[in-house]
């Protein structure tokens, strides 16, 4: 039995995983990162649009600060987020971006003087200030009041990931590539590491650690058409679920991005609309202002996706052999802008569609994009139920996104969560000894070995590729943008059947080393379980909130549903997860539930909302001289790590 | 971890930089020299007189009172070029595929990709390899016979001296190698990159191709002219061209007794037309042999 010991084990080499590892290493703890692929190939690299941080250097971001970013984030989440976390996040994000700048990210900078931009379909001249010249600039993104999304042309995620990985290399952090965590080792409610399969040799290795962090990204591949990488299969979430102890939070909260190309589902960044691109229907008509006169194309993602679907249902979609789609028009931005700031988009159009977006419209359609749900953690990043298990990034339900995440808030989350959770991981390593018996490790090892041997010896059975395809189709057709009770119950039943079938997978290629079919056979049953969590959670949640839109329950219902869904899978032989809920306490909210400002407000309000609003009024009245920091302290004192407490400087206003 | 330098105080040798620079430097000089060289040789196309003028000028004839010049100048010029040539060749050899295995890989790679610039490099290696021998022979001859450049002497060397196959090979090699080399130099050091380096590269490549064709044409024409002259002059091998011939003859008679055989009256200064050559075919072949021996 091969066992590798370390202080901190990080599963996942994306932005979140790398940043956690760096934090633990900086504090002097041995750290190993595991990744399915070389770290720089993680899906974080695909983020084109940018990272939100309220630096307020560009003229269109002037006046921006933590408060506004906080409000946008909470509103964006449809009040489903954990406001403590959102608060920590908005305070740390400017620091994160500045640190990344020192580590080498070539953020696009403000250039003094006049600049032509497209706002609301019109060419407008804006004038950047002299004193802002050379500071990190920002672009407009959906659902934000200010221009806050910092970017590097169209490669924000790529440059961030490269800087981060380079930093990890500089620090000598070992990254074990082509390794897949397939089970967590745990005993008595404490996690001790993971059983890991080497994807080249097929060998099983036990990685034993004090603290284990899961940063494996999203689970978009539960859907057949998604913008996600093909490795975004949610295995990290699944192995946490399979402990029976750790819970997954808000799994039904799945975001659809308005503009992925048809048919393959590759994303064209929100930057297209942020920079002035428009959505058109089959008549070339710009329809978004009819639905959302306020923010138009730049309404929140969930809103735009639903409006597009609605519009297509009215017969306004462009018919194609792959079903209806709409047009994204960026031709009005001009060649120069596209070739510089949206080049990746241009390349994608050229290679995959054979069109030049400078001259032609891009066929787009809402497509699965982001997983708000994930491993439920406390604000420290640790699982409330399984000690020593941490999670960060898209894999986690740290819960700053609630039921809908804002564009640009995700890569920001990965880094900020990495910084904050990393500190708590280090604290945990400091406070705990490695205390696990070999027999426990062996037990888990044996268990996984047996599963694999079973697969290799079974003569007849199910084809893993086919099971996966069936699952993806169910999710796409029945657990999509608009949901309803009937489809969802069908999906739940059908997935249950798939779950049973997945216990009888047989292989055609029966070798234990590098074997893609075996990899699939190990993953598919796990993925089906996750799909069940999503579908079941969606069926039970009889309201519409953020990305979760029930046609049969169109209103947001704070009274009954201001709570977080938690899912566990206690008994491995069961064919359904267990679902329970965690209330969000309105009386502790810095920003009590209100209207997001899209469409008609049909919210069923929570009885505490008014109470809390009055309370806040009173606190404000009682402290007339309090500045925003003092006020926030009064409204919602949060435990932010000492390192990240400081105020952030901005041009024109210093640390105010 | 901070800095490479701090960790290892050893300082890397500057030699590779110098050698690379020398390779390019010698290549550049040789490459440009060859352009000049081919233009000079090409003067034969315009007629024996022009070539003769060029040859004499090279011998710095205008400085000498006799108008005879100093063949020694040619000797030193050749020596310089020869040195550059050898230096360049030795530097170039470092880049050759050194083992059969390396050569195999190179060929595999070329076969797989069929990539122009990689193929061009291979052409350079092959032509360089050939020139190492062929060029050395030519330079050695030039160096050891500095005074022997002239329309007739050169043509005789080419035809009766059986140098033409060597020159043909050398010509093809040097034109390919030289122009490719100059193009590569621009790429290597980023010269003439302009605003759009990719476009400039296309332009330079086009220029390179044209230069090859141009110089190759000039060379081949020159060689043909030499061959024609040489064939027609086969019987009078050793005879010199132009007004200085007589003077030279005297000197040579004094020096080398066997030269008497060709102490024929000086030719008229005007370029010889074929008709006149026809009438002069009565010379003894044996003598020709003798003369050649002296020249070798």
């Amino acid at each position, binding site marked *: 039995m091969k066992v590798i010991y370390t202080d901190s084990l990080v599963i996942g080499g994306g932005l979140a995983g790398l940043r956690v590892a760096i934090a633990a290493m900086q504090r002097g703890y041995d750290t190993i990162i595991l990744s399915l*692929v*070389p770290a720089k*190939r993680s899906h974080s*690299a*695909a983020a084109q649009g940018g990272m939100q941080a309220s630096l307020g250097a560009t003229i269109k971001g002037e006046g921006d600060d933590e408060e506004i970013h906080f409000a946008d984030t909470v509103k964006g989440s449809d009040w489903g987020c954990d406001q403590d976390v959102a608060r920590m996040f908005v305070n740390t994000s400017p*620091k994160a*971006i500045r640190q990344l*700048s*020192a580590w080498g990210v070539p*953020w696009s*900078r403000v*250039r003094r003087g006049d600049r032509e931009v497209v706002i609301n379909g019109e060419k407008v001249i804006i004038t950047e200030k002299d004193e802002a*010249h*050379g500071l990190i600039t920002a672009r407009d993104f959906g659902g934000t009041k200010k221009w806050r999304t910092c970017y*590097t*042309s169209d*490669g924000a995620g*790529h*440059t961030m990931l*490269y800087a981060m990985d380079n930093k990890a*290399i*500089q620090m000598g952090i070992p990254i074990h*590539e082509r390794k897949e965590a397939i089970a967590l080792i745990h005993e008595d409610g404490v996690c001790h590491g993971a059983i890991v399969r080497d994807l*080249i040799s097929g060998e099983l290795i036990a990685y034993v650690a004090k603290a284990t962090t899961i940063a494996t990204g999203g689970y978009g591949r539960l859907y057949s058409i998604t913008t996600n*990488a093909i490795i975004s299969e949610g295995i990290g979430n699944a192995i946490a679920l399979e402990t029976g102890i750790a819970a997954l939070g808000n799994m039904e909260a799945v975001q659809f991005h308005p503009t992925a190309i048809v048919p*393959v589902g*590759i994303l064209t960044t929100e930057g297209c609309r942020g920079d002035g691109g428009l959505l058109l229907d089959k008549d070339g008509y710009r329809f978004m202002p009819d639905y959302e006169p306020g923010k138009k194309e730049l309404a929140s993602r969930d809103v735009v996706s639903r409006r597009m679907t609605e519009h297509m249902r009215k017969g306004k979609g462009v018919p194609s052999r792959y079903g209806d789609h709409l047009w994204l028009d960026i031709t009005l931005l001009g060649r120069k802008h596209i070739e510089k700031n949206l080049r990746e988009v241009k*390349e994608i159009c050229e290679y*995959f569609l054979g069109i030049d977006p400078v001259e032609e419209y891009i066929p787009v359609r809402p497509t699965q994009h982001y997983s708000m749900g994930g491993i439920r953690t406390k604000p420290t990043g640790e699982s409330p139920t399984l000690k020593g298990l941490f999670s960060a990034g898209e894999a986690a339900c740290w819960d700053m996104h609630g039921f809908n995440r804002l564009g640009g808030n995700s890569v920001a989350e990965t880094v900020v969560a990495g910084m904050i959770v990393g500190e708590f991981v280090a604290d945990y390593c400091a406070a705990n000894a490695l205390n696990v018996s070999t027999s426990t490790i062996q037990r888990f090892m044996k268990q996984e070995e047996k599963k694999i041997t079973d697969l290799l010896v079974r003569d007849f059975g199910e084809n893993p*590729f086919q099971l996966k395809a069936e699952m993806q189709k169910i999710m796409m057709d029945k657990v999509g943008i608009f949901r309803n009770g009937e489809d969802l119950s069908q999906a739940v039943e059908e997935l249950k059947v798939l779950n049973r079938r997945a216990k009888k997978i047989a292989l*055609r*290629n029966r070798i234990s*080393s590098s074997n893609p079919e075996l990899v699939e056979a190990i993953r598919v049953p796990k993925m089906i379980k996750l799909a069940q969590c999503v579908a079941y959670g969606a069926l039970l949640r009889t309201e519409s909130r953020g990305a979760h839109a029930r046609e049969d329950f169109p209103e947001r219902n704070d009274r009954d549903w201001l709570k977080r869904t938690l899912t566990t899978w206690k008994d491995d032989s069961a064919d359904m997860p267990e679902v329970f809920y965690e209330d969000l306490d309105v009386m502790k909210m810095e920003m009590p539930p209100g209207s997001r400002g899209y469409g008609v407000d049909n919210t069923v309000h929570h009885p505490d909302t008014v109470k809390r609003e009055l309370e806040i009024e009173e606190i404000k009245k009682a402290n007339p001289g309090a500045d925003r920091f003092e006020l926030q302290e009064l409204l919602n004192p949060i435990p932010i790590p000492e390192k990240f407490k*400081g*105020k*952030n400087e*901005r*041009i024109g206003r210093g640390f105010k | 971890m*901070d800095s*490479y330098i701090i960790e290892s105080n050893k*300082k*890397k040798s500057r030699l*590779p*930089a110098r050698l*690379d620079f020398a390779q390019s430097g010698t290549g550049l000089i040789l490459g440009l020299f060859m352009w000049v060289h081919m233009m000079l040789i090409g003067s034969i196309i315009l007629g024996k007189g022009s070539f003769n003028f060029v040859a004499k000028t090279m011998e710095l004839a205008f400085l000498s009172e006799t108008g005879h010049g100093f063949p020694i100048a040619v000797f030193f010029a050749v020596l310089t070029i020869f040195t550059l040539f050898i230096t360049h060749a030795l530097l170039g050899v470092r880049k050759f595929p050194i083992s059969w295995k*390396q050569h195999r890989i*190179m060929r595999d790679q070329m076969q*797989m*990709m*069929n*990539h122009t*610039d990689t193929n061009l*490099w291979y052409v350079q290696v092959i032509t360089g390899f050939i020139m190492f021998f062929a060029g050395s022979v030519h330079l050695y001859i030039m160096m050891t016979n500095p005074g022997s450049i002239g329309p007739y002497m050169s043509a005789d060397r080419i035809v009766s001296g059986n140098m033409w196959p060597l020159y043909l090979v050398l010509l093809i090699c040097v034109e390919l190698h030289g122009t490719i080399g100059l193009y590569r130099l621009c*790429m*290597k*050091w*980023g010269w003439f*990159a302009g605003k759009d*380096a990719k476009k400039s*590269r296309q332009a330079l490549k086009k220029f390179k191709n044209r230069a090859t064709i141009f110089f190759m044409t000039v060379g081949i024409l020159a060689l043909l002219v030499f061959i024609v002259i040489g064939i027609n002059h086969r019987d009078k091998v050793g005879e010199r061209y132009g007004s200085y011939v007589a003077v030279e003859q005297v000197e040579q008679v004094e020096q080398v007794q066997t030269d008497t055989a060709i102490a024929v009256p000086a030719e008229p200064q005007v370029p010889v037309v074929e008709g006149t050559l026809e009438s002069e075919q009565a010379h003894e072949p044996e003598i020709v042999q003798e003369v050649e021996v002296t020249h070798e």
Partner: protein
Amino acid sequence: MSDQERVLKFQIFRYNPLKKGDKPRMVTYEVTEAPGMTIFIALNDIREQQDPSIQFDFVCRAGICGSCAMVVNGQPTLACRTLTSLYEDGEIKLLPLPGFELIGDLSVNTGKFMRAMSERVESWIHDTRADDVNYEKLEERMDPDVADEIYELERCVECGCCVSACATKRMRPDFLSAVGFMRLARFALDPRDKRTDDEFYEIMGDDDGVFGCMTLLGCEDYCPKDLPHQTQIAYLRRKMVLIR
């Protein structure tokens, strides 16, 4: 996108070094072409329908991550964004990238190579103050043009095409190769990196470094991200040759 269906013939290199007795060979598979089909789609089709053992690497399938470089009809390129309709005769020959450790079939270990490259060129900002930077304060300013220029060089996705397209690299395994030069040029350009020319010389000043490059320009011609290899290697060479 043509609507008429045709049958594509894929000749694929097969060899699993971990399987005893396995020998390198070319195997032909036939796939019915679909509109907009990429090599990514075709290979998955082959794996799912015909031969589940076939190995290849895709991650983003959008031409962004650099995982899927392979040799398609002799040309190193990103397979995921290569449409099958580009090949008129419908014959597509796939080989793994040469010059890297073979994992199996079309899969090669570029990750290992790239990590070693990053360590060799010390692919990070060298500034002793970078770790103690006060991130509460305004970030250090940078000229917008310089930032753009750095990004141009930072667009490399470590796909390895430039490595495989370089005959020099293949003949001399220790040659740093173009991806390393791009990385060095990127840091040499970055005002935040405080390395001196002398320090850079220590990294690349030999025949395994920039002086070993024979300007074959395969790197320039095969880089799927169109990085300016030629001008940047030339820039490094000029910079390094002048050092005393």
